């Protein structure tokens, strides 16, 4: 049963013609579209190596039937940073040595981005460890991963704070009739 999928991956529209409905989103990304940054560690939803953002939510892409994701927006590790600048999570992973072999790393990074977007951790290490426990790392870079996510949380909070300050200042000035 051939079918045609429309996916927006990292902001780019993709049309994927499938000869049958079996492929997972992970295999479509890796083997059809050629985005191999997302890894397969188990194909069973047990390791997190395949984590991507599907319509903004972190998911194990090996558990998503590609056919069910028609029309969806997908962000993979390749789409996280624009113009060579690293996402704060990526930068924090490097600085905190949050990986060794790097095989789990795309999944860890996407999972961390998703976790921070969920906004439930409050930067608390215990909650971060819990929230990152769906992503196995056999090299056991866990101390670095936790430190990196805390670090990224702090940076993103600070950046958010600055943006809020800027907004407030702009609004103030607008109220007082000054040019922005």
């Amino acid at each position, binding site marked *: 049963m051939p079918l045609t999928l429309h996916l927006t991956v990292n902001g780019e529209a993709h049309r994927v013609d499938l*000869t*049958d409905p*079996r*492929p997972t989103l992970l*295999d479509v990304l*890796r*083997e059809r579209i*050629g*985005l*191999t*940054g*997302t*890894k*397969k*560690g*188990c*194909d*069973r939803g*047990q*390791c997190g*190596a395949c984590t991507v953002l599907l319509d903004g939510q972190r998911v194990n892409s090996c558990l998503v039937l590609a056919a069910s994701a028609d029309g969806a927006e997908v962000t*993979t*590790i*390749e789409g*996280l*940073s624009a113009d060579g600048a*690293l996402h704060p999570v*990526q*930068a924090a*992973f*490097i*600085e905190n*040595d949050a*990986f*060794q*072999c*790097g*095989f789990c*790393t*795309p999944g860890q*990074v996407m999972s961390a981005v998703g976790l921070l977007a969920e906004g439930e951790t409050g930067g608390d*290490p*215990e909650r971060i*460890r*819990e929230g*990152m*426990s*769906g*992503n*196995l*790392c*056999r*090299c*056991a*870079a*866990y*101390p*670095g*991963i*936790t430190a990196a996510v805390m670090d990224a949380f702090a940076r993103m909070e600070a950046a958010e704070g600055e943006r809020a300050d800027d907004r407030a200042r702009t609004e103030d000035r607008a109220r007082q009739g000054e040019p922005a």
Partner: protein
Amino acid sequence: MTDMIEPVSPDTLANGSAHVRLGSNAGQPLTRADGRLKVTGRATFAADNRPDGMLYAVYVSATIARGRVTHLDVDAAKAHPGVVEVMTPANRPPLARDPDAKPHPFALKVDALQNDRVRYAGQPIALVIAETLEAAAEGAVLLAPAYAAEPARMDEATGEIFATEIAGFGNPALFEKGDVEAGLAAAARRVEARYTTPAQYHNAMEPHAIVAAWEGDRLILDMPTQAPALSTAEFASFFGIPPQNVLVRSPFIGGGFGSKAFATGPYLLAMLAARMVGRPVKMVHRRDQQFGPVGHRGATRQTLRLGAAADGRLTALDHTALSTTSSFDDFLEPAANASHNMYASPAMRMAHQGLRNDVGTPGAMRAPGEATGSAALECAMDEAAEACGMDPLAFRLANYAETDPQTGRPFSSKALRECYTAAAERFGWSGRPLAPRQMRDDEGRLVGWGMGSALFPCPMFEAEARATIHADGTGTVEISASEMGQGALTALAQIAADGLGIDGDRLDFRSGDSSLPNGGIAGGSGHTATAGSAIFTAGADAVRRLAEIAVADEASPLFGASNSGVEARGGRLHRVDDPSRSETYAAILSRAGLSSVTGEGKGARDPAAAESRAMFSHGAVFAEVTVDPDLAQIRVTRLVGAFAAGRIVNPRLATSQLTGGMIWGIGFALHEETVYDPRTGRPMNADFAGYHVPVNADVPSVEALLVEETDRHVNALGIKGVGEIGITGTVGAIANALWHATGVRVRDFPVKMETLLG
């Protein structure tokens, strides 16, 4: 921290290194050279390759452990749309080498469809090649194998126990010193205990993967390997082609831990498949296929007998191991050998026996022998300390080995005392109550503290490297090293830059491809020492050639200095007697009209040093656990380790290696176990839902301290190794902490809640 500016003693280097020093780049806690690639998804692992025309292969795993395959429904598989070919023993193309032969001592027998026999569950019994992964997977299901099964032999009662002369990789299976029975008879305190450790599987996050392609009689392989250059000869021998016809590309390895160092049956089948269909073939193991044909840590049953005098000094140390292997090959986990070198005892005996079961052949898994053996040894030492009424650390200090207990040789260096002190202080060990069940946390959980000593040998293999200085003053260093997470691309490049006397950003470090000089094996914690020595001497050799040109050139400010009278720094040669007189590499080469100068180097152990010294990394690990008094739920709340491993090339990466090893210790102590169905012999938990490894939430606090140690014998660079030692002290430390929390001695790994509930 290790003294980073210690000059290398030039007399012990193979090539003259008088011009270069380790220390400008080596010793710096640089972030990973491949960090950017790895956090952006651009680091290319084997399975990421998709050459044009590529097909997918999936192999079928036996679901019985012993017997014969009587039927495969090849027609049904072939009829499935997309299936291109099916390989079975009936049509498998010939191999030039018998998969059951052992042409050299490190060769393991492999399963490559040589017949219809099944000798362990998970053995490959057929392979399907298809246009898509989905079609190959479906074809594999459609083969629906039928078997004539024979009873699986999965325990001591059904398996054959055999005597052996060899344990591990060619180590003698028996060591005796003094009279153990007399030592035990004379002891004031005696401890005898039996420990068991289960089969464990490496389970690197990257499953074994290969993309194989033939170009005429050249074989091109994208696959993760811990020994790129060495593996070419191995693969070539199966196809009757010269080793130089095999190209192995392995830029990144997604974790190996010993499982990616050897030829395996499934890899050979993928190569055969590519030849059969005349197209590139990709084959990636499913997670359950990581349990079987790629080695594992064999199960052990160990018995320790310790005698101690009233003052706590050992009078005898007896360690025997029964190690499980396959029905058809001989690798035995050398567990008892872990007691050779740790504690002083006038009488010692370490012995092994083998047990044949219907499992895949075990092999090296992170700290083979040391992990299992030290787990038992450190527990037994704790029991002996208790019997003597002594603090566990004081007891170990009373048995501190000033010379190697096995050989009587001096240690090349041994800062274990400093490790004990550093880790104990950081942990806050003093004031620990001797008796168990004395401490509780705020929530009423039992708290226990335990410790263990860590030790790992410092082997060196053989490696070669090539270093080139170019006309623009940049350098290139080439070696087929393996980046598998330990940080080879970073640490080895640091050594390479120092060897060439240039800044790291002026260096092009090329690695991970078998066409480059043989980088040896990333294993045995010996890669940095071996490959690093080759790289450093290659750089020094290139600089020496450059110096020869300069001192003989009247136009050079270095003219007239003796060859040993110049030294390299920052891409310049300086006169030693007048450092203000110097010249850039580029200037020297340009005047000489040369586009480059190339040096070569080798890394290997100095045989004289090997004969005269015992060489080990050492460490101490302290653990805190909490145990829920009603539910016996276990948490490892703190781990502190301190390690002395000679020169540390990159403290940031070394620390990660050590904490990673310690977390493997948590997995060993509390999680990892393969459970086989006794009827079929099949692992019942061949996935991450059933085979547990530590997750982030299991690891609230792990710390590794680096203890300064200078070693002038282990190799000219003074480098030991940090890859495996972390696991060795940790398992015992956790088990001993569990006793201290609960009063229950745990002797079977992994420790389960029900054991503590009694």
